[in-house]
């Protein structure tokens, strides 16, 4: 089992200093070879750019109601058509994209951070700490979301919006709520990986060599446990974008006139047979985001995988 030590050696090189070829440069080199991932990164970059700059270029107001142009298909005047109030869908998708993307990434970050933290601590410590943390995980898994959400709105909305303003307050609430309800699978996944990895030979070896616990975790175990985490992260972005739309139906989300992607999709669903474009474009936007994030995830995974021999 000589290969195991090899694996750990490569892995330990990831976070910091290493001789000759820098590990980050190595990872970047591997990532670049993953054509789909590079393409996806470009697409995602374009999407982000579009929602950031787009509203400056396409200056149609998002809430301009025009009853003479209701449910119109794409045209020069409205490149993505209009909704049932005659509002321009391109402007709405661009504007809503900022929020959807921001919510998606931020909520994913919260979920992954909390999940990895809880999972790693539980998986490493075991015993009482593990029991306590898994109790917490079980608790969060069993809490019914809706009443809790209503409670959170009721308890915190006014205080928070009073503190940091409406938009930011709502953003913080949404991100913490979505993130707060999605970290548990990550925690359990990471913990399970840790259980398995911490008994592996290369970890034993590192331990025998006197590696400290944090070092053991950061350098040897965690990088090897990242596979499912990356998958979970890429799935969570999509889930968060969709979850945001359900929240606004509880009065927790952004005010009802903010056209996030999930909300556009929801509003469009009843008109699916008469105005398919209304659902098509926000749906495609979510899909493109998910697609590119997942391929980037694949690329990252391959790039960071110590055992991967580049062939693709």
């Amino acid at each position, binding site marked *: 089992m000589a290969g195991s030590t090899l694996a750990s050696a490569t892995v330990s090189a990831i976070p910091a200093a290493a001789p000759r070829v820098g590990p980050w440069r190595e990872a970047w080199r591997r990532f670049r070879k993953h054509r789909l991932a590079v393409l996806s990164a470009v697409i995602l970059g374009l999407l982000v750019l579009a929602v950031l700059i787009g509203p400056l270029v396409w200056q149609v107001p998002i809430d301009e109601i025009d009853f003479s142009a209701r449910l119109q298909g794409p045209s020069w005047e409205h490149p993505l058509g209009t909704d049932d109030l005659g509002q321009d869908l391109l402007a709405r998708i661009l504007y809503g994209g900022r929020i959807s993307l921001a919510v998606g990434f931020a909520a994913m970050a919260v979920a992954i951070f909390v999940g990895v933290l809880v999972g790693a601590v539980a998986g490493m410590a075991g015993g009482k700490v593990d029991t306590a943390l898994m109790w917490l995980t079980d608790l969060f898994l069993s809490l019914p979301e809706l009443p809790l959400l209503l409670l959170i709105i*009721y308890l915190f909305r006014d205080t928070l919006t009073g503190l940091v303003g409406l938009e930011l307050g709502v953003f913080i609430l949404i991100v913490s709520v979505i993130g707060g309800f999605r970290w548990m699978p990550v925690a359990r996944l990471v913990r399970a990986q840790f259980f398995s990895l911490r008994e592996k030979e290369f970890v034993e070896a590192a331990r025998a060599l006197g590696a400290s616990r944090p070092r053991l975790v950061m350098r040897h175990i965690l990088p090897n446990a990242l596979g499912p985490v990356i998958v979970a992260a890429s799935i969570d972005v999509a889930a968060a974008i969709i979850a945001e739309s359900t929240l606004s139906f*509880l009065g927790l989300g952004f005010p009802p006139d903010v056209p996030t992607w999930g909300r556009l999709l929801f509003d469009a669903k*009843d*008109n699916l047979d008469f105005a398919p474009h209304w659902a098509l474009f926000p749906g495609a936007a979510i899909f493109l985001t998910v697609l590119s994030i997942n391929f980037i995830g694949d690329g990252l995974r391959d790039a960071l995988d110590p055992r991967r021999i580049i062939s693709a």
Partner: protein
Amino acid sequence: MTENDLRRLLARVKEGTLSRRGFVKRMAAVGFTAPMATQLLAITGAAPAAAQSVPEYKPTRRGGGGALKILYWQAATLLNPHFAVGTTNQEASRVFYEPLAGWAADGTLYPILAAEIPSVENRGLAEDGRSVTWKLKRGVKWHDGQDFSADDVVFNWEYARNPAVAGVSIGSYRDVNVVKVDDYTVRVEFQKPTPFWADAFVASRGLIIPKHLFKDYAGSNARDAPTNLRPVGTGAYRYVSFAPGDMLRAELNPNYHRENRPYFDTLEIKGGGDAVSAARAVLQTGDFDYAWNLAVEDEILKRLEAAGRGKVNIVEGGGIEFIQLNATDPNQEVDGERASIRTEHPAFRDPAVRQAMSYLVDRNALEQFIYGRGGPATANFLNNPPRFRSTNMRWEFSIQKANEVLDAAGWARGRDGIRAKNGTRLKFVFQTSVNAPRQRTQAIVKQAAQRAGIDIELKSVTASVFFSADVANPDTYTKFFADMQMYTTTMPQADPQLFMNQYVSWEISSKANNWQGRNIVRWRNEEYDRVYREAEGELDPVKRAALFIRMNDLIVGSNHVIPLVKRPTVSGSLNNLRHILSGWDNTHWLLSDWYRET
């Protein structure tokens, strides 16, 4: 038609020179079709017109109609009418239980378990308005074969008025006294002259449950009654099975007391899902015969109707969608109470601002593009029955006029385009419940207001919170801790007395009454209070109607209440289904008479 004309007509009916039907026809011609036409006759001593309000029933024998399938997108959860929180439960109970009389679409009473509708002429109504005597139909049997009698009726009064039972019908029974005259006669006695007597034992709150099955459960153990879930009634269909929140099944009652009825052999009511797919299941695929309350944008309904299988039914009632402009200040606390009655709204205390808000609501667009046939624009708060409808109110959508009014009143635009005066900015929070058409309406109002220099922040609260009586929650509509709010209020009876008490000063919703008061907009007006008191005791129906019209004009004229659209009930049915609907009673009020044309 003046009061004098009306009196002359009534006199002619009494003399016999004008038939009762002729009278109702004339009243209809001048917009008086209401239940009041009948009540007019009843109270002034002429018997009610024979109910021509119900279409003819064509089938000539009982049964043979196969299955009737009804779809409710909210599901019934229990089958005891006295516990029926919400319409779906009332509807489900109505399949099995019947009242003494129901309200037909034109607002006339139609006898069901009563032998006839009480009137002064048949000595059913006391001249002083203090009692009403009901004669019961004979030969009616409960589904288990027992006889229906006056004892059952009296029992329902005892049951419903008992606070330990904790029923929802208590309001109709606690202030009356019910006496058994003989086995087939009961008398309802009132504490004071009561112009509107048709409440107890009538329509949705008047469903009669059998004494012999409920008498052991007429206290705090009411919820243990097995019959709560296995109803035994007098209706045209009898119980087969019930899964709360899902499916109710019934079958033809071979001993039903009305001949040749019912037509269908079996009945099923499926619950759950959403309104749009319910519309699809009837109008597009024809899987179901009837879908209840299609709260769907009319545009979609019209497109579904184009499939040619079914049609949309619009039935007028008293429901109204409206905006309230808070009379008190939600952002100021007095003794720990927000929106205290001791405060005044900083902007809405200026009539010009309220006038401007009224100008900024495009009711035409709401009707045309959102509610369609399900929401005709209106200038009145009290729209039905037609005899109570004011002709004095107008509405207009004009951003220009709104701007002019505000300019004239000294509300000048600031650098950000938002108007202000003496440090008060026209920046309002506009709340409503989560509901697609309401969010659309919010967007339309917001945009118009923007153009008049008014900034509106939209807020939507989930319906179960918005409409709850939860004292702890700040987002309920009765607290109204916002500048503006919008919802629909319904009128369950063809009489406006209960409906119009929502603007009297003693009903103001405040901390002192746990925000249970009905005057939510917290508007006070001495004249309104006085007129309302007058109407409560006014036995002359013509004067009484005039009083209610005055009340409507007062509240709408203040612009604290901005009526938007009427909300008739909208349902869908297959083209060959013949149903009888009424805006003043449940959908199933005359389910016994539904049939299919072949």
